[in-house]
């Protein structure tokens, strides 16, 4: 399941909804990313997260397909928010559902790695009056 949305989400609700479909699932590993109050020694107030939606969907699908080739997963979930997000807001949830722990654990980390590398989202951080696009090239 892939969701790209502005609204917040409830991780218990979202994970339960999928878990209910799979009585053979014994392990759910998940990661939640939040807006931190500080980055590069600057006090962050909020971020604006821009997305290229159609491409983000395609990239998430590709990443999930790759994970399914490497691990035995019963299901997986990516929720990624965009838009204006205040400090402490959730940004992303990745959850991997499997019979045993190792598959869920390793695939969750793998999906996060690729998500950070390939998913077309860009953070514009707001500090007081200024703002700055985050970049991996400086």
């Amino acid at each position, binding site marked *: 399941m892939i969701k790209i949305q502005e609204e917040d989400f409830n991780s218990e609700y979202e994970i339960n909804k999928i878990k209910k479909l799979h009585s053979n699932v014994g392990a759910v590993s998940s990661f939640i990313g939040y807006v931190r109050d500080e980055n590069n020694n600057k006090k962050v107030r909020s971020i604006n997260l821009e997305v*290229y939606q159609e491409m983000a969907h395609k990239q998430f699908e590709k990443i999930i397909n790759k994970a399914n080739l490497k691990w035995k997963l019963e299901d997986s979930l990516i929720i990624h928010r965009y838009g204006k997000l205040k400090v402490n807001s959730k940004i992303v949830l990745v959850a991997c559902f499997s019979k045993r722990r190792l598959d869920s654990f390793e695939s969750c980390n793998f999906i996060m790695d690729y998500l950070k590398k390939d998913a077309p989202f860009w953070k514009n951080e707001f500090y007081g009056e200024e703002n700055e696009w985050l970049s991996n090239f400086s």
Partner: protein
Amino acid sequence: MKIKYFAWIKDITNLEEEEINLNQAKNLDELKTYIIEKYPDLKKYMIKEILRFAINQEYAVNNINLTDEDEIAIFPPVSGG
């Protein structure tokens, strides 16, 4: 074909997307030349290989022929998650 710009690239092009036709660029390399002529401020980022290209929502690294139906996106390194 449709060209889309994201993040701070938009601040340089001053637009989010535009249409160009095959006479202006029939492959990705020609498109790169075309946009740095049109937006000279993009040139230094192109040279430093900071710009990313996607054709129809897939990353494109090598040169590739374009068609009128293609959607090309130009953006900086991603920072999601």
